Structures are given as structure tokens and as C-alpha cells.
């Protein structure tokens, strides 16, 4: 599964169970995020043992995007048996500020900032 555009890419690699985001994501509201939500929901539905959200190359995300990632984390949390890892990078300062909230939603979530 993958979504590729001029400004951002979202790719799910089934073998590594990594969902990789890159570029800059500042779409207009839930409607424009629908295809990304669908990809994320599909991954959650497959109930893999582990899901890695790799955001290292995601330079910007607006608040609508933060809402979409939070929804996904809550969806994964409901399934109980999935181990969730979020990887960010210190070179994207927004991640140090905003990603910790995902951990508040799901305390077992592992957050790594490289």
C-alpha cells in the first residue's frame, strides 16, 4: 500500500511492518486526509504484531494531520495486542513537541527520537 504525491509519500512496507511518511503534510481537513486514514485503518485491521510509524522524514504536519495520527493510535490501542513504535527525528523540531501526545493516548507506545 502506498500513496505518492508531489509533496508527500506514505508507504506501508508489509515485511518490515513500517509505515513510512515523508515530505510535508498540510492537507485541508479530514476530507483531504481520507486516503491516508484508509491506508492506516487497513494496517490496523490486519492486526500485525507490531506497527512502526516512521516519521523521520516528515518535515511538517498540520493539526489536521496530528488528529489523523492520533485517531490511528487510538484505533491500534483498541486492538490491544499490537506493539506500536513511533520513530521521529530531532531534525524536525515539531516532533519533539507534538509526538509525546501520542504516548499519552497509548502509554505502551514506544517513542524514539533519533
Amino acid at each position, binding site marked *: 500500500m502506498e500513496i505518492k504525491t508531489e509533496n508527500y509519500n506514505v508507504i506501508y512496507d508489509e515485511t518490515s511492518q513500517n509505515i513510512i511518511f515523508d515530505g*510535508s503534510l*498540510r492537507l*485541508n*481537513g*479530514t*476530507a483531504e486526509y481520507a486516503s491516508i486514514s484508509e491506508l492506516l485503518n487497513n494496517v490496523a485491521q490486519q492486526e500485525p504484531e507490531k506497527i512502526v510509524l516512521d516519521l523521520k522524514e516528515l518535515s*511538517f504536519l*498540520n*493539526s*489536521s494531520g*496530528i*488528529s489523523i495520527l*492520533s*485517531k490511528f493510535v*487510538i*484505533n491500534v490501542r483498541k486492538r490491544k495486542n499490537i506493539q506500536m513504535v513511533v520513530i521521529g527525528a530531532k*531534525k*524536525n*523540531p*515539531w516532533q519533539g*513537541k*507534538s509526538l509525546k*501526545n501520542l504516548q*499519552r*493516548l497509548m502509554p505502551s507506545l514506544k517513542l524514539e527520537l533519533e
Partner: protein
Amino acid sequence: MNSSNIAIKQILGDFIQNLPPSQEYLILSFSPGSIPLRQRWRNNCLSADFLADYLSTFFLGNDNQQPDSEKQAEVKSAVSYIANELLENAMKYAVEMSPFPISIQIHLNPDLIIFQLTNSIHFQRTQEFQAHIETLLNSDPEELYIAQLEKNALEEECEESGLGLLTMLNDYGAKLGWKFESLPQDFSEIAVTTMVQLKI
């Protein structure tokens, strides 16, 4: 519409009325009437990135000669996020095709960046917006933020995330304030200025 019957609170939150002059500032202004606002969405990113990139230049290291690259990256990221969220809000809530311009100003002070976004909203939306502001100002931002995320997750069809201003408060520790002003030439609209103060 007779606006005199409805009390409009002028100032809410942390709003500096007479902003001291600063050496470095930028203003972008555009008319919502020239093209439909929703078609301007991509300009939010361009404007926010430009403002952020421009201002980050002024952050030099202790010797005032070389750029402090870590600080610059932090300022750039924060300015870009906040400016983009403010512009997105203006696109969503400003009166479409209004003659009243949307403007964003950013003032740079040694340890404080001040954002001011002005747009007009429909007069009828004032009370609803002010009630929302009171909730923002009178709640614990962290609790409200988490509650909003949980609420969004339950609502399949919610169009607005309601997170823009909350992330500024909770993630960026910014101070927020608002000024409401009636427009003498048009009682159906009211001008709203949102001020964001970001410590750096």
C-alpha cells in the same frame, strides 16, 4: 442587523493592545474576494514557510556572526507551524468574498515572537467563537487536548480537528489573545485579531 443589542467583548486572553514597535516585522495581506479562499490552500504553506525562513535568519549564535543553526531550525519549525495554523483558520472561518482583508503580521523581539492574524467573521458566529475561546482559556490545555483527540477519534465525520489553537497552547507553550472589533461599514461582519506570543 442591529449589533448594538448584543454585547461584544472586545479583548479575550493575553492581548497586547499597543504593540511596541520592533525593528523586524513582516506583514502579508490579501483580499478574500479575489479568488475563493479554499483555492488558496496551498498559499498557506508557502506563506508560512516564507515567514519562517525569513525570520529564522535573524537568529545568530553568541558571537552574533555565525547562524545558530539549532535555534534557527527550532524557530523555523515553530513559526511555520503556527503561521500555517493561523492561516488555515482564516481560510476556514473568514467571511468568503469579504472586502475585509486577511492579514498576518509577525513581530520579532529578542526573546518573543508575536503573531497577529486578522480576518472578518460573520457576526452571528461571534458568540459561538467567544464561548470556544473561554473554554480554551479556562481549561488545562493538556487535559483539553487529550479530550479533543479522544473526541475526534469517536466522530467519524468531524471535519474540523479543533486542534490548531490547542497545539499552540499545549505543545508550544504559546500565549493566546483575541480582539473583536465591529466594522463601521458592515454590521454583518466583525473583525477578529488573534494574537499568539511565542517565547524563544
